[in-house]
């Protein structure tokens, strides 16, 4: 782990140990609990406005828009049967987004820690495997890994494809977690470095200049995590009859 601790000081201009302030596991758990409390409070408040025909509660409207967004994403990438994966995708989106946005207000964000991200990626990929097995059966799910159906001597190639697909399935965990961790943690390092630059003139350069791009990163990373989980789900759960129905919408007319 010492190599990870060397990243901060060597990339920063002034190595005062500014970037190396990561909380302990208990602190991380407290941050995650804080995120969950925020989410539960918002959603219980949003639930109060559900009874009316046209939503007047602004939080309820916000969550309605978020739901429509996630639903559109699921249906456009998975297909018509993607509607049943919305709760999981919504949970991921809100958890990652609120976890990311914490860093703009508090000194640390839970998504800037690799262990939390790896846990979430394991849940996501495990959920994908579970849904694949539930849709196609255990052997049908394994058959997905071996690529197209080949005959004769080409079975050897199927075995090779199987091994490569297994490796790539495991690497999905790494890529999902490392992407989120690298973006959020790298953003913190960049803000710290910029703050150090403006230290002499008492202006927090990083907090001022990098704030818009950090907000953008928060949204985009939450979107990408959910979007990639949707794509993985669509790869393992597609049925044969789905190819017949036109769920991709009408092709746009050429101009």
């Amino acid at each position, binding site marked *: 782990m010492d*190599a*990870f601790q*060397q*990243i901060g000081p*060597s*990339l920063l201009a002034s190595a005062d140990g500014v970037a190396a302030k990561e909380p302990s596991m208990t602190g991380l758990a407290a941050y995650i609990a804080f995120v969950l409390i925020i989410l539960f409070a918002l959603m219980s408040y949003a639930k109060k406005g559900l009874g009316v025909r046209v939503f007047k509660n602004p939080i309820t409207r916000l969550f309605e828009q978020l739901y429509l967004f996630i639903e559109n*994403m699921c249906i*456009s*990438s998975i297909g018509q049967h993607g509607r049943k994966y919305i709760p999981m995708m919504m949970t991921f989106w809100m958890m990652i987004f609120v976890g990311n946005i914490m860093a703009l207000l508090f000194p640390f964000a839970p998504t800037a820690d690799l262990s939390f991200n790896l846990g979430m990626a394991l849940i996501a990929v495990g959920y994908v495997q579970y849904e694949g097995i539930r849709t196609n059966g255990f052997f049908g799910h394994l058959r997905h890994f071996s690529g197209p159906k080949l005959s004769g001597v080409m079975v050897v190639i199927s075995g090779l494809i199987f091994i490569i697909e297994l490796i790539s399935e495991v690497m999905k965990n790494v*890529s999902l977690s*490392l*992407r989120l961790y*690298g*973006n959020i943690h*790298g953003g913190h390092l960049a803000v710290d470095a910029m703050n150090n630059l403006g230290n002499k003139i008492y202006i927090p350069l990083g907090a001022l200049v990098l704030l818009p791009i950090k907000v953008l990163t928060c949204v*985009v990373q939450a*979107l*990408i995590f959910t*979007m*990639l989980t949707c*794509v993985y789900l669509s790869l393992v759960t597609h049925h044969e009859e789905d190819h017949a129905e036109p769920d991709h919408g009408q092709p*746009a007319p050429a*101009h």
Partner: protein
Amino acid sequence: MGTGLGLGVGVAALGVGIGLGLIGNGALQGMARQPEAIGKLQVQMLIALAFVELVFLLTVFVAPFLIK
């Protein structure tokens, strides 16, 4: 040690910057040619951006382990 690390990260950032620029270029051209497809193009562009970004992040996290 710090010099090599900084140089490696710089080279990685150079390549990834070119890749991101190419993706943005392609997506913008597609959007300009067909404004109806902006929604789909944006999502696909973001996915491609994520994959290219991952290369840089992998470089950043693997480079300190290589220098010993």
